[in-house]
């Protein structure tokens, strides 16, 4: 699954409010048929899974052998990956915005690479080149997940930084006598809170759901456990899948709602969870340098 987040600036998506009367001519029947079909296709499997698992299976999940280990490994990986991602990407993105704006395009290109290279290929390459001390620890996965999270993290942060007048803020902060650490911590970060939140949430969601790399590296994370456990009990595996799903959805809904609210306040910028486009239309030209 190649999923990328893009918190896109409002300027890129023209407001739909300007639709004139002429375009409103529509085909209600046709539209409702399509939407109902889509609704059925997306909702029936959810309902079926709930029925199949039965409500009894949910408490059972927590009592199964290996569940605690798997979920704790997944959570630890999520925390480590998120910290590494933010520590690597936040200063880099801020720095690029301030000092090397000409590099932004290359950054977009580089951060799209983890999507171009299929996860299965990346992990076999990593397992081939990683030194022994890394191969023997599951935190190798966290190091690779940072790469996987890069497209999400970079795009969120880039959009967040584009929405504020970073240069003025930083200059003001510096001329008031704040050093760089203070500026970054007390001026820049509070201004890109929404972007930080979406980068974090997307990274966590990615780590909690990642199966390909974990299974090839032979570490039993939560998704790997679900698959292994199917042999013991189908309903419990289905229940665990639903649980994983709802947790991921809650996390994603969090960015959509919080991001949406923050955006309205600033007048623009809606959170679209997905676009992979290395935006050729990006406003590189009209940018104050």
């Amino acid at each position: 699954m190649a999923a990328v987040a893009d918190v896109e600036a409002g300027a890129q998506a023209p407001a739909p409010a300007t639709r004139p009367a002429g375009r409103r001519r529509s085909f209600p029947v046709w539209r409702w048929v399509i939407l109902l079909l889509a609704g059925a296709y997306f909702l029936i499997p959810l309902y079926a899974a709930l029925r199949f698992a039965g409500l009894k299976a949910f408490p059972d999940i927590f009592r199964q052998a290996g569940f605690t280990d798997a979920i704790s490994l997944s959570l630890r990986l999520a925390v480590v990956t998120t910290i590494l991602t933010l520590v690597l990407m936040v200063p880099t993105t801020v720095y690029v915005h301030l000092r090397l704006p000409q590099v932004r395009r290359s950054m977009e290109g580089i951060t799209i690479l983890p999507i171009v290279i299929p996860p299965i290929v990346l992990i076999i390459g990593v397992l081939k080149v990683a030194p022994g001390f890394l191969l023997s620890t599951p935190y190798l996965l966290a190091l690779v997940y940072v790469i996987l999270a890069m497209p999400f993290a970079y795009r969120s942060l880039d959009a967040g930084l584009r929405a504020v007048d970073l240069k003025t803020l930083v200059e003001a902060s510096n001329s008031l006598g704040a050093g760089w650490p203070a500026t970054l911590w007390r001026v820049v970060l509070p201004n890109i809170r929404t972007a930080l939140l979406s980068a974090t949430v997307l990274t966590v969601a990615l780590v909690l759901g990642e199966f390909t790399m974990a299974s090839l590296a032979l570490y039993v994370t939560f998704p790997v456990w679900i698959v292994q456990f199917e042999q013991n009990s189908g309903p419990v595996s289905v229940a665990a899948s639903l649980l994983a799903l709802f947790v991921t959805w809650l996390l994603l809904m969090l960015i959509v709602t919080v991001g949406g609210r923050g955006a309205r306040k600033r007048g623009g910028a809606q959170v679209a969870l997905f676009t992979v486009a290395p935006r050729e239309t990006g406003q590189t030209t009209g940018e104050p340098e």
Partner: protein
Amino acid sequence: MAGSTTQAVTPEAVTSGARPGRVPAPLRTALRWLGVVPFGVYVALGLIAPTVAIAIAAFQDSTTGKFTTSNFSTALHGSYLLGLKTSLLLSIATAIVPGIFGLLIAYAIFTAKRGQWLRQVVITASGVFANFGGVPLAFLFIATLSTTGIVTGWIKAIFGVNIWDHGFTLYSAYGVFFVYMYFQIPLMVLVILPALEGLRPAWREAAQNMGAGTWQYWRYVGGPVLFPSFLGCLLLLFGSAFAAYATAEALTGGTIALTPIQIGALLNGNVLAGQQNLGYALGLIMVVIIAIVMIGYTILQRRAAKWLR
């Protein structure tokens, strides 16, 4: 990574470097680039090095390490060729069908009259569903359409037919196709919507003023403007399906002949030893195919950008 500590220091160095006359110019330029070094090193080690290692190993004999192209001739024959073909066909099908459905859904919410809430719901749901694949998705469909699945039961109860007795199976390429639509359709909605919104109402009005009907508008104005974006989105969907591993693996237990699954099997030690490099060759083939697709995507995106600003 180790480099992250230098990050906090470098901007300082650059600021002082920017004061005239204190640091010579070439050094100043070099210092400017220091800030992206940790990121560059991380990408080089975590992304470039593994890819290069695969590219090299793909041309080496698994046991002797000598240069050979035999990995590729194996990869392009027999069951591996079949896997590649199935993967390509599956990806094409899961680009085109969800592509059309996604376009219709996007158009439906785009033209909806009291569309604001509907729009928000569909976009939010698409964002959530598009990011949802892998293991849970496979189990969702096992619960729905496996031999003991709920919907299989409904169909049996209503029509008296067990679809599994009539050639239906969830654990084949057709089953995988049906499941992949679950994340491909919302993905299409999200990527095509900006393009639809880029169609200016003024164009429609201009066409109408000149007497064009709906069909003529789409044939001569809307269609041509939208087409590069649409094709680009299809390529994106193709790439997304082609690289997918988790869903098919969890759904079929690794029994389906798709290239990613075969790579996984070769490097999991389930197949004869001494065949890892065949896996690397298959991996390299995948990267090359995706690279071609992405180049096509970029070109189409550039063409689309001409009108959609």
